[in-house]
C-alpha cells in the first residue's frame, strides 16, 4: 500500500537548564494510506513530541527539530514555508487531542469553530459551511445539529466534546488524523463509543490514523501496526497481531506482562518492570532500557542496539531479539 506519511531519522530536542533533552532521538516510521498506526509508550517516551514534530508545533525556542525528514504525500514538511504548513494543518492532516476542553475555544460557539476552517481552507460560503457542519455532527453521532451548533463547548459532556473534536478533524476531508491519547480522559464506556466511532469513520472515509497512546488494550483493538517507544527511540515495530503474540523487545515484553488482564486467570503477584524511566537529558551509554532490563548482558551497556529486522515487518532494537523467546529473565534484585 502507498505510504502517506514517512518520517525519517527524526531528531527533536529541547534545550533546558538541566541540559539537552533528547525527546525524539532519531526515529523513522511511516503510515500507509487508510491504516491505523500506533505509537505506544509511557510518559516522556517521545510519542507526543513525535506528533507535534509532524505538525511542526514543537514549541520554540526551547524545542527544535534538529534532524530528519517528514515526507507527507512526497513533500518534506520541514521544507515548507510557514504559510504552506498552515494549509497542511487542519486541512490535510487533522488533529485530536486528549483533553478536548483545552483545544476547543470556550468563548466561541461550536458552530463557529466548525465552520471557520471550512470557510478558510475550502472557501465555502457561510450557508455551505453551516450545512456541512450539521452533516459533520451527524457523522460523529450528534443529532439536532442546528441547535447544537449554537451552543458553547461547556454545554457538552466530555465524550460529546471529543466527538466535536473528531468532527473538526474530519471537516476538511484530511488523508491523515493524528490522535494524541484521544480517549485517555474519558470513562471506559465512553472510550469504547469514541474508539468504535473513529474505527468506523476511518474505514468509511479511508482516513489514516496515527494513534498515540499508553493503553495497550486500545492498541490491540484498534491498530494495524504498532511502534513501541522508549526514551525517545522506537524499540520495536510489528503488526499488532505479531507484536502481542511474539514480542521481541524486553520492554514490550515487560509492558505486556505488567498489566493485569481480565481474560487471564488472576495472578498472585503482578510482574512490574523494575526501576524508573531514565532522565532524557542524562541517558546511559548503550541501550537506554539496560538499567531496567532483566535480560541485560555486558554488550547492552556499551553499544546502542539498532532497530533491526527480524522479518520484513517485525523490527526490534535489542541485541538478544532473536533468542528472546528462549531466554529466562535474570532474577530481579529489589522491587
Amino acid at each position, binding site marked *: 500500500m502507498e505510504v502517506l506519511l514517512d518520517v525519517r531519522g527524526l531528531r527533536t530536542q529541547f534545550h533546558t537548564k538541566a541540559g539537552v533533552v533528547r525527546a525524539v532521538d532519531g526515529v523513522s516510521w511511516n503510515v500507509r494510506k487508510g491504516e491505523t498506526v500506533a505509537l505506544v509508550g509511557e510518559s516522556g517516551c517521545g510519542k507526543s513530541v513525535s506528533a507535534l514534530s509532524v505538525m511542526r508545533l514543537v514549541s520554540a525556542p526551547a524545542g527544535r527539530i534538529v534532524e530528519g525528514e517528514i515526507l507527507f504525500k512526497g513533500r518534506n514538511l520541514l521544507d515548507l514555508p510557514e504559510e504552506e504548513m498552515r494549509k497542511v494543518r487542519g486541512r490535510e492532516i487533522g488533529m485530536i487531542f486528549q483533553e478536548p476542553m483545552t483545544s476547543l475555544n470556550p468563548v466561541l460557539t461550536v458552530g463557529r469553530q466548525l465552520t471557520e476552517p471550512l470557510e478558510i481552507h475550502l472557501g465555502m460560503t457561510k450557508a455551505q459551511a453551516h450545512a456541512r457542519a450539521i452533516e459533520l455532527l451527524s457523522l460523529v453521532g450528534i443529532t439536532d445539529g442546528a441547535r447544537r451548533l449554537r451552543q458553547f463547548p461547556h454545554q457538552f459532556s466530555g465524550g460529546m466534546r471529543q466527538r466535536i473534536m473528531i468532527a473538526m478533524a474530519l471537516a476538511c476531508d484530511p488523508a491523515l488524523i493524528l490522535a494524541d491519547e484521544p480517549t485517555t480522559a474519558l470513562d471506559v464506556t465512553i472510550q469504547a463509543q469514541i474508539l468504535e466511532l473513529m474505527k468506523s469513520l476511518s474505514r468509511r472515509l479511508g482516513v489514516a490514523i496515527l494513534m498515540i497512546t499508553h493503553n495497550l488494550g486500545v492498541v490491540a483493538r484498534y491498530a494495524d501496526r504498532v511502534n513501541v517507544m522508549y526514551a525517545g527511540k522506537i524499540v520495536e515495530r510489528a503488526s499488532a497481531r505479531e507484536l502481542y503474540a511474539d514480542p521481541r523487545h524486553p520492554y514490550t515484553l515487560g509492558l505486556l506482562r505488567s498489566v493485569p488482564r481480565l481474560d487471564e486467570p488472576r495472578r498472585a503477584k503482578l510482574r512490574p518492570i523494575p526501576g524508573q*524511566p531514565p532522565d532524557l537529558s542524562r541517558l546511559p551509554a548503550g541501550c537506554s532500557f539496560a538499567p531496567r532490563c532483566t535480560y541485560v548482558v555486558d554488550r547492552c551497556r556499551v553499544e546502542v542496539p539498532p532497530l533491526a529486522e527480524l522479518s520484513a515487518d517485525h523490527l526490534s532494537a535489542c541485541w538478544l531479539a532473536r533468542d528472546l523467546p528462549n531466554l529466562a529473565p535474570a532474577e530481579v534484585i529489589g522491587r
Partner: protein
Amino acid sequence: MSPKGEEANKKIEEANSTTAILEVRNLVKHFQIGGGLFGGRAATVKAVDGVSFSIRRGETLGLVGESGCGKTTTGRAILRLEVPTSGEVIFEGRDMARLSDAELRGMRRRMQVIFQDPFSSLNPRMTVGQIIAEPLAVHRIVPDRTARAARVHELLRHAGLLPTMARRYPHELSGGQRQRVGIARALAMEPSLIICDEPVSALDVSIQAQIINLLEELQSEFGLTYLFVAHDLSVVRHISDRVAVMYLGKIVEITDRKSLYEDPQHPYTKALLSAVPIPDPAVEAGREHVVLGGEVPSPLNPPSGCVFHPRCPIAVDDCRRVVPELREVKPGHQAACIRL
C-alpha cells in the same frame, strides 16, 4: 439518640469485634448548588444516594464506577472529609457521627487515605523526611526527635524507598516515588484501614504494577484493610477480595471478586466489563462488545425508576417506575435490577 439506635449500635459492636472493621449503612451525601448570593435555582446533586456495605478486617473491597458515580465522595464521607447528609459509618465498632472532635482525630489516625495525584497531596516546600515526620510529631506517635528520624527511615524502607530519599523534595521525585512517599506517610499513623482513591491511575503502566505489589505486601505485613476506589476494572480484579460497582450514586452490584468477574449479573457491570479492551489482538478479534449508548446522566436530574434504564439494553417499561432494591440474586451476590 433513640433507644432503638443504641440497641442496634451495641449489636454492631459485637459483630464488629469478630468481623467487620467498617460498616457503611445507607450513606447519603447530597450537595446543594445554586440558590446562593447570586440567585439561580437551588438544586441537589445526589452524589451518594443510599450506599451500604461492610469490609472485613484484612480484606480489600474494590469500589468501581465511572467518573461522577460517587465512589470518591463515598470514600470522603467515610473519612468525614465530607459530612454525610445521612446514614451511618461505623468504624472499629464506633459510629463516626457521634464522636467528639478529639475522638474523631484519634479515629482518623486509624483510617488513612492515599490519593490519586501524590504531587498535589505532598507539600512542595517540605522534604520527604519532614512530610513523613510531621504526623509522627503532631499525633505524638514518636515524640522523640532521634527516634522519629529512625522511624522515618524505617517507613521509607517499608515503602520501597532508600533512606537517603528523606532529604529530597517532592518535585525531585518521579510519580511512582511520590506515591511511595504518600504510602509511607499513611503508614506512619499505623492505620488499620486505608482508603486508596485511584492510587495508580496517574502512574505509568510499568510503575502501576510496582505500587500494586507494594500495597499487597504491606497489607499482609501489617494486616491492613483497604477500600480500593478505582475505575480500572483489571486492576480492581487483581487487588480486591470483593467488589462493589457504583452507578450514579448507588451500588448496583456487590459480590466476591470471582462471582463479579466470572458471572456478572447487572447489565451495567456486563457492559463495563465488555468495554475494557484486552491487550491481545487475537482475543479482541473474537470478543463481543456491548457498546453502551448514551452517557451517564447528570446526578442533578437522575432518571426515574432505575437510574440506569435509559442506557440499559434489557430495560422494560417497569424500569422507568420501579427503583430496584439491591437484593441477593444468587448466594452471596447482590444486584439492583428488577429483570434478574
